[in-house]
């Protein structure tokens, strides 16, 4: 799909999180695309992509689930738009592996009882905004610039790694999020933890791990003077938003916490920072839609734990 006279239109794979714990990502994605007059049609009857747990223990199952979803997506016209970083990574990985490995491809095609469709371009929302819709046009479409909003753009793991698979941006020094933020009128901050892991799906099995890793990310964003963090992954959002209060309790007063007594000295790191501000966590689509003038009521803000409205009011963006 090339930008130009024809209206941009995509098939859409939301993924499980966007129908539940990341519902505001789905809501704001739809609202944003509507505001930009870009078509978005959900793939009917899609399945879970298997995410990290499937490839962790059974690669063939993971590849087969994604191949099945890619063939379902073939029924809908347009490149496949994906919002969740994990789904995006799995679908791209599947295409990459199966193109390179004829044996695996044969096994997968037997498993899904049909040909593996490897040629439908899979695109993350970020690249649709920055490259297909285009930064210049995006900037032109802004109705309410996000002036004065200092944002820590958080990439996490799967949007850029491993090299050659996601084809989204440089695997060590990406800039696509910052570019979009600048187009929206916001001010991206320079910070240290934009590519560090948040603990991802350990949120279920080992929440202590998530608390430690996500605390480091929040601390780094505060140190850089950010007002908020922007993400493009429902798992990152869950860990940084839903667990933020818990993180504060765990690391706010060292030694005296239940957390500290359970995990002993090897977990909590010394926390010298006085700054314990709440950091609202935004999805890229929420910030972009807000800048496009979409009413804040249609962006799912009621679903998040750290209320972003005081910050937005303070910056006169509400």
């Amino acid at each position, binding site marked *: 799909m090339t930008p130009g006279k024809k209206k941009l239109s995509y098939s859409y794979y939301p993924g499980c999180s966007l129908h539940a714990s990341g519902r505001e990502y789905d809501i704001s994605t739809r609202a944003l695309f509507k505001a930009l007059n870009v078509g978005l049609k959900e793939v009917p009857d899609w399945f879970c992509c298997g995410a990290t747990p*499937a490839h962790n223990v059974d690669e063939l199952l993971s590849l087969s689930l994604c191949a099945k979803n890619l063939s379902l997506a073939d029924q809908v016209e347009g490149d496949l738009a994906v919002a969740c970083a994990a789904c995006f990574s799995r679908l791209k990985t599947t295409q990459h592996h199966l193109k390179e490995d004829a044996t695996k491809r044969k096994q997968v095609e037997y498993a899904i009882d049909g040909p593996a469709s490897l040629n439908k371009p899979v695109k993350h929302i970020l690249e649709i905004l920055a490259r297909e819709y285009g930064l210049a046009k995006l900037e032109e479409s802004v109705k309410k610039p996000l002036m004065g909003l200092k944002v820590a753009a958080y990439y996490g793991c799967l949007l850029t790694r491993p090299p050659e698979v996601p084809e989204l941006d440089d695997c060590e020094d990406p800039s696509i999020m910052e570019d979009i933020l600048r187009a929206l009128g916001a001010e991206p901050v320079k910070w240290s933890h934009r590519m560090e892991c948040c603990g*991802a799906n350990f949120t279920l099995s080992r929440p202590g791990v998530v608390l430690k890793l996500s605390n480091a990310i929040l601390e780094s964003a505060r140190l850089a003077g950010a007002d908020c963090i922007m993400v493009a992954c429902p798992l990152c959002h869950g860990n940084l938003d839903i667990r933020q209060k818990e993180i504060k309790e765990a690391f706010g007063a060292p030694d005296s916490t239940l957390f500290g007594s359970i995990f002993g000295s090897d977990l909590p790191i010394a926390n010298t920072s006085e700054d314990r501000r709440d950091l609202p966590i935004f999805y890229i689509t929420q910030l972009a839609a807000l800048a496009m003038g979409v009413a804040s009521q249609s962006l799912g803000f009621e679903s998040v734990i750290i209320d972003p409205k005081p910050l937005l009011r303070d910056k006169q963006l509400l």
Partner: protein
Amino acid sequence: MKNKLMHLSNETMNVGFVKKVEALSGSSVRRCFQCGKCSAGCPMSTFMEHPPNRIVRLLQLGQGQRVLAGRSIWYCASCETCTTRCPNKVDLAAIMDALRKLSWDADGPSKESYVQLANRLFIENIRTYGRQYELRLGAIFNMKSGQFLKDLMLGPKLISKGKLKMFHSKNRNIGEIEGIFKRIEEMRKKGEAL
């Protein structure tokens, strides 16, 4: 296991295991020259008794059992930093996947049962419903791991925020998923797939 002396001999070196890991991952462990970049960038290495570079070294020395007996493989977050930075193109993230699969197939002897349990429930959900049913995932995980109070305050909050659905309907094409699981099992039984 960690502090025991390692004796290298024909008896303790299991080359067959390493070959299996290499076949599953499509990556050679022999390319590694122990620069340690993987462990330097690994966000989880502080939780592991064997950091990533040592896992590869142990594999080079045929010490598969030592690797599987530890918890390192279950603390890998699949963030792909190691694979991204390896100067010798060792796909360590894929090697970790392969090790977990071999441990999973043997049903132990890993110490890290919680992560295994979470993975198992996640995959069960796909087979039963087609998509994730997060409330069920969390509830059954807590029951089976005996942590009845874990995240107890979080559940009702997430339900009230609309982030957890109380009920979940199956995909209407759920039969196709069962077919995928069955055909993969069938290929493995016949020895046509790893």
